[in-house]
């Protein structure tokens, strides 16, 4: 059996003239937290919908737990806990009703855990969903996604609408606990500090393409910002091997580079430059570099 929970190969998707996904290949390993980063319209939700079988693959293939989610929705969805970005739980249901309703679909539903989460999230079982705030609705969705202890937890923008306390303490704890139990979490977010804190592996999606797919540790280790002082003054940044982004003027230029530092040092030496400052990059900076670079 493959160790990949999600195996996407050369997936492409068009909506009219717009390429939502272009030749996307992605493997999400079993266990751990996988973060999906991308700007608005990058294709994150489209990718998630393919994983759930709501979109069929126009070209390429999608396999979840070894099954095609379009052909075998029950086998796949029964093992997934999904929190949608839309928070579209029927508004006319009461909190307890939506819990009981969702329970009917999952044989492995843990009622004790559901009650525990309901109390943790301070949800009134008699309240109608439409009378809840956006944050409270997000908590209901999170509860519904978690209570059957899914093998794969798919969270589409889970932080949206959640207050900082819930986001930082509870969501983090839940995601980490799920991953530590050997289950897999795939979540998309705009909050890169959150992804940096939670994810073990990250994929950056830009204009429908995967521009980066590595473990967070590797990414943070391989990207650096370095400031070089040149003997002569330049109007445009001198070209350095491995540099992804540059800014500055005259003698001093700051580069973001990824990969082999020796190569950069060698190149700078050839241009009679000295390294005057060096600093690691945050995931935020790395994301911007990749998006601008591509």
């Amino acid at each position, binding site marked *: 059996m493959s160790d990949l929970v999600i195996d996407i190969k050369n997936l492409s998707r068009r909506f009219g003239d717009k390429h939502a996904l272009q030749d996307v290949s992605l493997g999400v390993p079993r266990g751990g937290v996988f973060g999906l980063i991308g700007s608005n319209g990058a294709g994150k939700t489209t990718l998630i919908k393919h994983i*759930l079988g709501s979109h069929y693959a126009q070209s390429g293939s999608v396999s979840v737990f070894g099954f095609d989610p379009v052909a075998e929705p029950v086998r796949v969805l029964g093992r997934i806990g*999904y929190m949608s970005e839309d928070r579209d739980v029927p508004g006319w249901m009461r909190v307890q009703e939506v819990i009981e309703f969702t329970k*009917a679909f999952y044989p492995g539903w843990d009622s004790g855990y559901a009650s525990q989460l309901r109390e943790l999230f301070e949800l009134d079982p008699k309240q109608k969903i439409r009378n809840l705030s956006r944050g409270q609705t997000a908590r209901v969705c999170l509860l519904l996604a978690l209570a059957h202890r899914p093998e794969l937890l798919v969270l589409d923008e889970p932080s949206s609408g959640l207050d900082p306390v819930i986001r930082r303490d509870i969501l983090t704890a839940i995601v980490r606990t799920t991953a530590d139990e050997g289950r897999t979490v795939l979540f998309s977010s705009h909050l890169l500090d959150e992804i940096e804190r939670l994810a073990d592996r990250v994929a950056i999606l830009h204009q429908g393409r995967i521009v980066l797919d590595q473990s967070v540790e590797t990414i943070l280790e391989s990207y650096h910002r370095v400031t070089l002082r040149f003997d002569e003054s330049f109007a445009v940044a001198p070209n350095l091997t491995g540099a992804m982004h540059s800014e500055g003027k005259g003698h001093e230029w700051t580069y973001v580079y990824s990969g082999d530092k020796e190569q950069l040092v060698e190149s700078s030496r050839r241009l009679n430059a000295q390294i005057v400052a060096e600093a690691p990059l945050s995931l935020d900076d790395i994301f911007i570099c990749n998006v601008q670079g591509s």
Partner: protein
Amino acid sequence: MQSIISALSWEYYARNRWMLLYLPLIANIPVICVLVPLKSISPDAAFMTSPLLIGIQMILILCMVLLACFGVLTTQGGLKRLYRLPLSTVQIASYYFCSGALLVGAQVALMLWLWKVLLPIDLPIAGPVLFSVVCWCALQPVVRGQSQSLWWIVLAVLIVIALFFWLLRNHGIPLQPGGMQTQQVHYWTVISRADWLITTVSLSLAYWLTTLRVTYDRSGRRKTSLFEKIDLAWERVQSRWNSGSRNFNSAIQAFSWCHFRSGPIAIPMLAIGSVILTWMIAGLVSIIQQDSSTLLRFAIGGTYLSTMLQVYMAFLFGILGLFGSSLARFEAPEQEPKASNSQILEVSPFMDGLPINSIDKSFAVLRSSGRATVLSSVAVILSYLLITIISFLLGNPLQSGEGIEIKSFKYLGFLTTSAMLLTYVFNNLKFSIAPSLMRIDHWIWPIIVIAVLLAFRMPLGLCLSAGLCVFALVALVYSTIQSLIDKDLSVRTASLIWLVGIAIAVGLLAVLRNEFGPVGMLLAASLVGLVMLPFFSTAAGLRQARTT
């Protein structure tokens, strides 16, 4: 102001475009489906102006006006999106109030002109157009604002009923016992002073209330009306008694419950409500008049209207389902519907994320639609049963009355059955019927049949009903084969459905062979075919809707 009007008009046109063409066409569908086949029953032009036909025309005028109002309201969208613009509340309310009235009036005038072209009826245009404008304006205070309460729908229905009596007084058959039996029909050719007074008072009051409501809505002051207070109190009572605890034995049961509560429940609620209201009014009037036959007359008329209302509501819900949740909530199409209030459950990501296969889902949907149909039909049947019992107990006062006789159970039975079947068809419009309607290959045979019949100079009604019948048959055969290939149904189940369907069709035609002409026979056969269709096509429709 000129530029504001231009900007808002451009926004209205740019946002809707083709929808502006589709909606008038949709509003005319009931007319084409009902009146054109009827025209072919009798070559005599006088038939089209008989009291029965005039009665049908009145109902159709009301349906057309309501559809026109609904269409304009839908294309206009919610006003909330304009609240952030530097426009005064009066400007916002006035623009949508007046432009809507103009559009509805123009649309109704155009459609009535089309009726006159298609049918040998010399329909007046001015009166019904005035009626449509008043209808639009009178409904504005009810529909504007963001209230989600069902009470507003009740209020809207009451307004429409009140206005319908105004239409009845001016146009059609005499509003008196036995009116249907007299040959006196009257057209709304003269707009009297009373009509102008009704129009002026309604428009002024409606405008004032609309502006007030939009002002309240814009300032965030809500839940101030009596209706909303009653709604809140009802909600509190419900919360006390309803803990929300439910036990579902299966995913099918849960899904069926959810589907039923998401929309179809409104049809039996309305049918039961209107039957109860009918009996209350009938009782009250008979007490005032101290005449037992009045009770039965009102009860028969009201139950008949409830039956029509059931079909009409199912049709509206069917259209709502087709055009999505944005239409249902009167929101502008480009606006995201409020996520937590999503009504059309099958298109929501939450529902799509549930592990239930399309076969179970289709079973749940059919069960829910069937439940809604049966409940509303039971209300109507019980009402007729009560009429029979009371009539029997009172010594059958209608037998010697002015013409309305309840012995014609055959007619009532046919009417109720047809209403039941139509309700079921409309309940399943979105996933079962519409996918077939969209397939060009399903239309090839009907078009050939219509063309051949037209070439033999057959009446248009016969050609159209034959086309519809062929379409139903083609769709049914195709869906049956497809469902067997997809293994949505076993051969045994499919055969059973076909056998039952054929038996119903043969039974219906055998019982009513004397009453039905060839057009009626074909329409009845088509109806049975369309009722059978959901059993074969729903699973595929749901599958198609889920995965894009």
